[in-house]
């Protein structure tokens, strides 16, 4: 049987191993919508799981679904809440205390969307450029460029010179 061949692990094992990473990534990408994004991503993953044809790279598969859900939410909210006016990451207001390193995340919020998503996937999601590229429907070379441009902007804004 096909199912035997694929040998998918029990879904609970994926949750136990990755739910924190999915939740962190969702918050980094979607701010106060992050918890909804994470929940929606898990629902989508759960629905699609039995149809997977490979048990490889399940973590990166989950983070890709999370990134797509974050993008969807972001697009849906854009007209009412432009990025510049209301940063998705809650670095201001009552939730600010919950975010470590607010200077850094305020600067992250001000990056263009693709750059912001790319560095979030790369560092919060801990994906390599192939993984980032898959999540953003682009090439590893483009991912590398987005990440390095983002880091350059952040270094200038934060006055960091560490390389």
């Amino acid at each position, binding site marked *: 049987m096909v*199912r*035997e061949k694929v*040998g*998918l*692990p*029990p*879904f*609970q*094992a994926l*949750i136990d191993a990755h*739910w*924190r990473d*999915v*939740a*962190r990534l969702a*918050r*980094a990408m979607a701010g106060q919508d992050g*918890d909804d994004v*994470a*929940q929606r991503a*898990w*629902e989508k993953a*759960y629905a699609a*799981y*039995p149809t997977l044809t490979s048990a490889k790279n399940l973590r990166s598969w989950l983070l890709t679904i999370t990134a797509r859900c974050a993008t969807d939410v972001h697009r849906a909210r854009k007209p009412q809440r432009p990025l510049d006016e209301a940063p998705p990451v809650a670095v201001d207001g009552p939730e600010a205390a*919950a*975010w*470590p*390193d607010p200077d*850094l*995340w305020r600067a*992250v919020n001000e990056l263009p969307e693709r750059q912001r998503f790319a*560095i*979030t996937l*790369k*560092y*919060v999601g*801990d994906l390599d450029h192939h993984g980032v590229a898959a999540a953003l429907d682009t090439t590893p070379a483009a991912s590398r460029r987005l990440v390095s441009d983002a*880091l350059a902007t*952040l*270094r200038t804004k*934060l006055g*960091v010179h*560490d*390389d």
Partner: protein
Amino acid sequence: MTDLESRLNRLDTPGLRPPVLPDADVAYTLHDTPIGTLLLAVAGGRVVASSFGDEETMTTRLARAVSPRVLRQPRPLDDVRRQLDEYLSGVRRAFDVEVDLVLATPFQRLVLNDLPTHTSYGATTTYGAVASDIDKPKAARAVGTALGANPVCVVLPCHRVVGANGALTGYAGGLDAKRFLLNLEAKS
């Protein structure tokens, strides 16, 4: 990794919550009992596991045999847990649940399926007698192996089967567990 990269990497916000998902294809829970921790699982309303096996091994077997959508969800197991607790405290003599031996081989199914009718509460029988019951009188040893692989322990009472000389011989949950169950049934 540069300092800036590790600052990005360290994002950790409080109050993260695990996801809440719909009813699993296979729901399981770990249930502590006087004879040890049992992994209980149901699929499609039927009990598919009551096992002393470890969580990773059992859930992996269930994922392959039934569906990979296996989740730790205690609620669908409430009825089975209640019946087990009643049985283990001596107030229940038989289980009112449907069992599905998806984790068993065809021969194991033959041995295990009718165990509740081939044995009776408070009495023991032998591997040879069970072998005769299923019309394989020479298969006492194979019957012993099949009983040892029982995926639905306690509910399917493999503990009531002992050696021809009355020796307890073996049990997935250990001989102490087997002794506990036989004493419990003898007293109640």
